[in-house]
């Protein structure tokens, strides 16, 4: 063990102390003799590649999984929780990696469930709503606590889960990839909250694959690799490059590679060279009519705030939802997409941001998950020969470093990041002409992220069009030939990506707001809308950007 921690920086006693933890799943040793500790008033980060065992360690701590060996002490007492309820009662408040909330209940209930304020034995609904409104406001989230949770986007749900966790008077707060779907502003809000909790002496465990975030907020790091402890470090004493090396066990070069390549824009002005052209494509209540041409071999990035309609627009192109206005031209032919199936037959692949509910088929094997879309496209009576299936699976397992590399493992048992890779493999397997990636790098570790970015880049060079959505603007900028900006369900800008900076993009995304129109009439009643950052949107000025007045606009 190459621990570099020096004792003089440690506060006197650890609030959490895990020693020699081992957990074995059938076929995988997920944790192998891992030590881990947390101190009051510090932000600690668990780092490691996908499948390194971060989530498993967290679940071991909170009693979701029983441990095969080792001891856990909480504030000096040895504990062994039989379930999350006990852990919670003992002062450990947790947000697990996949959003685990209840879509059938209201936002307020999701926040307060299990500790609802009561009067005379019955739940005090008014107090509950008030309290949750406060909590949401604390995260700068302006949504109706009475609305159904299921009506909110994944990102909002993630924030609600966080609101639930921070409401508890906890000694320990655990956040497993809480920022994977959040935009910069939401992250900033979260960090503000984390800092104030830290001041109150709460020990906070923050897991993220975003190194920037980790370096911004964390005091101390514990690095895992392949279920083994690599070491515990102070953030300020560990260079990023060293951290990455410790995580993956070797030097990382690919990213820089990518940056250095020149972006050759293959855009042709004529529609014929466009793989797909959306003209005034829209859907009531979801996205206002939008134009979106995507050329063959072009990578288009969609940028916008939470709820700006990126996902909605992408869903229309992927045939997931039906458009009710506008036209879609695919390879020069006017087409209507009614089902995802049709889209696939036009070689359009849509990879959903919500991988648990709309992506993976948990109880099927890795192999079946990878070939699913390809097979569906071929029809049921033309099965892909076993040999071909195995080859395909093996090649993607290798190309995307899916771990464990066992094609017969159930996808349910893979770590979050590896599930995402399986999903990606599914879509690559159909050799799409247009690949729509909605948050494809969500929860993917830094090494794999680079791999995926490289992949996207190469695919585009080989003529695949890509529509790329990511909350991480750097990523969007790094990959896209063009960036389309959405705001309030309108396309507000369409820019060539030469010399665009994150700051410029941010300014564009956040600048004012589109005047409230029919979309608001439909959704505004619920008030489920995030306050746009720094919005002085009362002004009726029509200075919102149009295609024409944006610098570098397309036409």
């Amino acid at each position, binding site marked *: 063990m190459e621990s570099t921690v020096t004792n003089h920086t440690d506060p006197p006693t650890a609030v959490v102390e895990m020693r020699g933890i081992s957990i074995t799943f059938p076929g995988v040793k997920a944790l192998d003799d891992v030590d881990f500790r947390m101190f009051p008033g510090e932000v600690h980060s668990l780092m490691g590649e996908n499948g390194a065992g971060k989530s498993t360690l967290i679940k071991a701590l909170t009693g979701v999984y029983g441990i095969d060996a080792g001891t856990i002490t909480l504030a000096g007492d040895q504990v062994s929780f039989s379930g999350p309820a006990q852990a919670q009662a003992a002062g450990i408040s947790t947000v697990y990696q996949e959003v685990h909330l209840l879509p059938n209940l209201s936002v307020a209930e999701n926040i307060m469930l299990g500790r609802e304020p009561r009067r005379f034995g019955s739940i005090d609904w008014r107090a509950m709503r008030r309290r949750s409104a406060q909590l949401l406001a604390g995260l700068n989230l302006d949504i109706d606590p009475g609305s159904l949770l299921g009506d909110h986007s994944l990102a909002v749900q993630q924030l609600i889960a966080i609101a639930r966790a921070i409401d508890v008077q906890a000694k320990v707060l655990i956040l497993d990839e809480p920022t994977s779907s959040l935009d910069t502003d939401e992250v900033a809000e979260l960090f503000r909250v984390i800092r104030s909790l830290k001041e109150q002496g709460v020990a906070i465990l923050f897991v993220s694959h975003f190194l920037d975030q980790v370096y911004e907020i964390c005091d101390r790091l514990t690095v895992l690799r392949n279920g083994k402890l690599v070491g515990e470090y102070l953030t300020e004493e560990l260079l990023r490059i060293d951290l990455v090396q410790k995580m993956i066990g070797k030097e990382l070069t690919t990213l820089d590679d990518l940056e250095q390549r020149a972006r050759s824009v293959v855009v042709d002005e004529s529609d014929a060279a466009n793989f797909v052209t959306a003209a005034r494509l829209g859907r009531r209540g979801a996205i206002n009519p939008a134009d979106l041409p995507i050329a063959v071999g072009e990578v288009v990035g969609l940028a916008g705030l939470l709820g700006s309609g990126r996902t909605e627009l992408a869903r229309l192109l992927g045939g*997931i939802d039906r458009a009710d206005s506008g036209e879609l031209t695919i390879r020069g032919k006017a087409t209507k997409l009614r089902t*995802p*199936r049709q889209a696939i037959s036009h070689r359009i692949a849509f990879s959903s941001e919500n991988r648990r509910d709309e992506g993976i088929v948990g109880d099927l094997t890795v192999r*079946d998950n990878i070939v*699913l879309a390809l097979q*569906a496209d071929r029809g*049921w009576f033309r099965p892909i020969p076993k040999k071909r299936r195995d080859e395909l699976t093996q090649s993607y397992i290798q190309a995307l470093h899916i771990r464990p590399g066992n094609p017969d493992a159930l996808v349910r048992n893979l770590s979050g990041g590896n599930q995402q890779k399986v999903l990606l493999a599914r879509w690559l397997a159909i050799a799409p002409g247009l690949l729509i990636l909605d948050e494809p790098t969500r929860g993917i570790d830094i090494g794999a992220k680079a791999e995926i970015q490289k992949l996207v880049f190469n695919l585009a060079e080989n003529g695949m069009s890509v529509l790329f959505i990511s909350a991480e603007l750097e990523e969007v900028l790094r990959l896209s030939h063009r960036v389309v900006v959405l705001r309030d369900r309108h396309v507000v800008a369409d820019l060539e990506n030469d010399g665009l900076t994150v700051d410029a993009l941010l300014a564009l995304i956040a600048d004012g707001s589109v005047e409230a129109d029919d979309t608001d009439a439909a959704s505004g009643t619920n008030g489920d809308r995030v306050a746009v950052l720094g919005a002085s949107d009362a002004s009726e000025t029509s200075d919102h950007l149009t295609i024409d007045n944006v610098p570098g606009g397309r036409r």
Partner: protein
Amino acid sequence: MSALFARVVAHRLFWPVVMLLVLFTINLIAFPGFFTVTIRDGHLFGSLIDILRNGAPTLIIAIGMTLVIATRGIDLSVGAVCAISGAVACSIILGSPTPGSLSTVAVAVTVAMLIALVLGMWNGFLVAVVGVQPIIATLILMTAGRGIAMLITEGQILTVNSPPFKFLGSGFWFGIPIAVIIAAVVFAVAALVTRRTALGMFIESVGINPEASRQAGVRARGLLFVVYTFSAFCAAIAGLILTANTAAADANNTGLFIELDAILAVVIGGTSLAGGRYSLVGTLVGALVIQTLVTTVYTVGIPPIATMVFKAAVVTAVCLLQSPTTAEALRGFRQRLAIRAGKGVAAS
């Protein structure tokens, strides 16, 4: 060696098979000739053959039910479809001037099957297109279907005198009961079609995560149509066998409560009612357990008033033994034993 044993014990069909063997043993004690299979009049004769033959209709229905359940559905209407197909076939045979001719029987069987296909598509329509919850969608046909069957027979038991038809239920082919052969064919077809093509994977994937499957381009609607139609088709075959068995269509009693037996067979076989992965072999074992249970009640002479309690005991026993909790406890027990044994060795 012990690793192999552990693997066998961990198999999800281990306990159902054990239960089957236990039931066999009980029978053997009560009736020593239980395993005797003789050849009488050129065909096989014996208790085991009876179990296979009488279990065939339940098995056939359970095969269709397995696929329905794998899509997260359930089909309560199979009993009614049994009754309808039997009623249709018998009334056609009765109405024909030549009830004994092969062609009459062929027409009767074909028409009965076609009607069952329509009924299956009806269920599929309600579930897949209208989006009615399967239990209610099929409850409608369960209620109305028996009425339709009675409408056809006018509430009477239609007795037919048609050797070819009767052959379907109690005939033999190469000494093996026809019903068993039919069940084997249905089983093989279902297994081949779902496992050799991608159908099985699609069914499972729709059962596990319908939305993800839709986005992956799986045609869930068509699939639901297919499984409900297939289920009704299986029910019709079973109904014809049941009817031919006594050469009489009894709209009231043919296939009464058979849906419960079929579902029980599916679940004992390890397929979850929550949909997803299914096992046809499991269903086969489940159906055998259930039929053996029924036969045991008769041969052992369990009084009718205690039959239900006995059934409850067996079902509960299988379920508890199959449970992961029990497996865990057993594993712990074995480990303790092993440790103790190890200590003993060390001490000596």
